[in-house]
């Protein structure tokens, strides 16, 4: 019985396997996927991609981008983030953004992006991205999710502290708890017991992403919104929290924002013995300087000045490096820069790579014409 059940599928598997083999033999040195991707880039079994469905402005410098992910998209939990690769001026750039909806009925996903000054990708997404554009995705990641999503006991009294676009993962959680439709906020049984306060910090009022959404939830009674604008209330001091939220001690705090705020909150909550979950936004930002260090594949770190090619630095340290013309012509020395910043010695052009906002596996660089402009990690 087992045999008769298994055999057809086994046959199919080998037949399928043979057909794949044949297709590969017919397209070598390319793969069949190289042809199929031109026609169906979102199909099952290929690299994960997505297509921009629409771009909704949220404020004058923020927008929500709705994406249709490829068939292999495995879903996400509100609060998680998404790494997205998009071509800006022809160059593939990777960034991480929080997913701002719970799982949607239409199968789309959305991210909300705030255009930061000099932010190449964020400005492109907010101001220039067009529906129909193909983007590259990784599966959702991140531990900044509500306990219910993690299958643990639900604390019912929650405090969200968000700063700037740190509001985005929190919006994802709130939208999952209180879906907002055209006819208003929907009350779900699973959210009935929740008592949520949102302290939202922003430089000034019009800059608050999702402010309308938060106000709507506040008006509906789903959350209590405590907006704090630097230009009205002054910069938030975490010691003020206990006066803003009198029952602070009974609440579990989820915070997302820049590292300064998170560090202060962590110190404050540790001292008070309060539970806190944090997520830093714009994690791992790399700033280019003059010279730095080079960490080799074997883990050793050596000094690297701003005028010596990384190839020479690595070789002087005894590392076996691929090399060629040593003048930037032959591309025989290309290895991935996993993290750090380098300067092209020919024209001063800077390349920065950080683990969150660059392609998985790093950015390949020519080591013979690249000097350290920060703490660099290379693959070999």
């Amino acid at each position, binding site marked *: 019985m087992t045999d008769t059940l298994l055999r057809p599928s086994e046959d199919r598997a080998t037949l399928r396997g043979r057909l794949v083999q*044949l297709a590969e*033999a*017919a*397209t*070598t*040195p*390319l793969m069949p996927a*190289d*042809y199929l991707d*031109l026609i169906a880039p979102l199909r099952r079994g290929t690299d994960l991609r997505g297509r921009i469905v629409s771009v909704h402005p949220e404020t004058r410098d923020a927008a929500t981008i709705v994406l249709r992910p490829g068939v292999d998209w495995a879903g996400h939990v509100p609060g998680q983030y998404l790494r997205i690769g998009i*071509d800006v*001026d*022809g*160059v*593939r*750039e990777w960034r991480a953004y929080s997913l701002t909806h719970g799982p949607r009925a239409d199968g789309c996903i959305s991210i909300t992006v705030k255009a930061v000054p000099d932010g190449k990708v964020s400005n492109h997404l907010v101001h220039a991205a067009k529906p129909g554009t193909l983007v590259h995705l990784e599966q959702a990641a991140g531990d900044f999710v509500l306990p219910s999503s993690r299958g643990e006991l639900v604390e019912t009294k929650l405090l969200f502290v968000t700063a700037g676009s740190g509001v985005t993962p929190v919006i994802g959680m709130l939208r999952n708890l209180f879906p907002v439709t055209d006819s208003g906020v929907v009350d779900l049984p699973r959210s009935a017991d929740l008592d949520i306060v949102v302290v939202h910090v922003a430089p000034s009022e019009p800059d608050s992403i999702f402010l309308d959404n938060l106000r709507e939830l506040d008006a509906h009674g789903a959350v209590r919104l405590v907006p704090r604008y630097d230009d009205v209330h002054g910069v938030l001091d975490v010691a003020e929290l206990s006066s803003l939220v009198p029952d602070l001690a009974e609440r579990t705090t989820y915070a997302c924002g820049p590292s300064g705020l998170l560090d202060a909150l962590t110190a404050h909550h540790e001292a008070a013995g309060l539970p806190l979950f944090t997520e830093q936004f714009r994690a791992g930002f790399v700033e280019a300087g003059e010279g730095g260090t080079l960490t080799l594949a074997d883990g050793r770190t050596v000094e690297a000045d701003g005028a010596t090619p990384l190839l020479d630095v690595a070789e002087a340290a005894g590392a076996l490096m691929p090399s*060629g*013309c040593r*003048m*930037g*012509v*032959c*591309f*025989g020395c*290309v290895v991935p820069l996993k993290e750090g910043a380098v300067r092209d010695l*020919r*024209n001063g*052009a800077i390349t920065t790579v950080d683990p969150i906002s660059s*392609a998985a596996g790093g*950015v*390949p660089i*020519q080591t013979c014409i690249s000097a350290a402009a920060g703490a660099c990690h290379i693959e070999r």
Partner: protein
Amino acid sequence: MTTIQKKNVDPTAHLTPEDIEQLGIELDAIRQSVLDVRGEADAKYIRNVIKTQRGLEAGSRAVLLFSIFPPAWLLGTAGLSVAKILENMEIGHNILHGQWDWMRDPKIHSTTWEWDMATPAKQWQHSHNELHHTYTNVVGKDNDLGYGIMRVDEEQRWHPFFLAQPFWNFINACFFEYGIAAYDLELGKNLKIKKENRSEEFQANVKGVLAKIRKQATKDYLVHPALSLPTGSFLPTLAANFTANVVRNLWSHSVIMCGHFPEGVETFEKKSIDGETRGEWYLRQMLGSANISGGPAIHMMTGNLSFQIEHHLFPDLNSNRYAEIAPQVQALFEKYGLNYHTAPFPQQVYSAWHKIVRLSLPNGWLDETNAKNLPTQLVKLYKLTTGGPKVRRMIELADRRAANDKKLAAA
């Protein structure tokens, strides 16, 4: 040709070291001007070329499923030939140069690309990008000068073996991809070494080449013909693939000959590149390359190697920009009093072949020969060919004496 260092008139003699460094700075500025503006449109360009090429190849192969019908054979073979040329020239060659690495697209990258060629991309990158592009036209360093089997310079001693070099060159052209593979392996040099003494690297490379050839041949000469079996088109499809490969090989061989072989392209002595500055390197690239003039079609089909000069100056600059910088580069040639070598395709091909024929014969033989002295010249050639080294040296000596006498008489 004669290396620039041994010429009576060195075409660079009028340039001071300061001139040469200034020239380098001006070329750097041209390169930077492209880097400053390249972006989305360039990315779109290469993706469109790739998409078009894949569409053309798939379409042509689909038509060839019915290649038993002559019009289908002609159409499919023509399409496949063009597709294979595009794949090798505008796409493969240029991506493997790293011209598109700046897009950071792992699918269009010098470290991941593989092409429809007998030689694996990695090996070709070593011999082409690293050796040929660094040591361009340096006699003894750049094996592209005659691929190690031809006499392409007066200073190479003539031997009767070279009489057959026009023939070798034609055979090499027909099966160019295998010639390149052998060349990348440095097969000639390695076969001279005893089998057990050949390096592990060489043995691994041979394995790589054979595996690649097997895959490519299986595709062209087995899989696609077999797919055409239902219409009884096995043999016509096989013939179509063979034809397309030969067309592609002849074409790419011709284009590459035009790049460095035409008369008037300079070669250099090994010593001359010791401690070469960036400006001097640029200068060598300028004098060691030749362009093909023509319209957009020829530029596309040559993978923009019709701008060989610009390509050799900026091998990592994306090819679609060569056309726009060519006038600026040409203006620099004029400013510094150098010869920008460009001519239409037939003229360059003729010139390259003329040189190969001329150098297949002893120095000066072709120039001295006319209808009147043909019989005596033939007798001389016969003696040279059959006489062995001693006889050749004697005749050379006699020639040199006669030339000296003539000079003295004229004086």
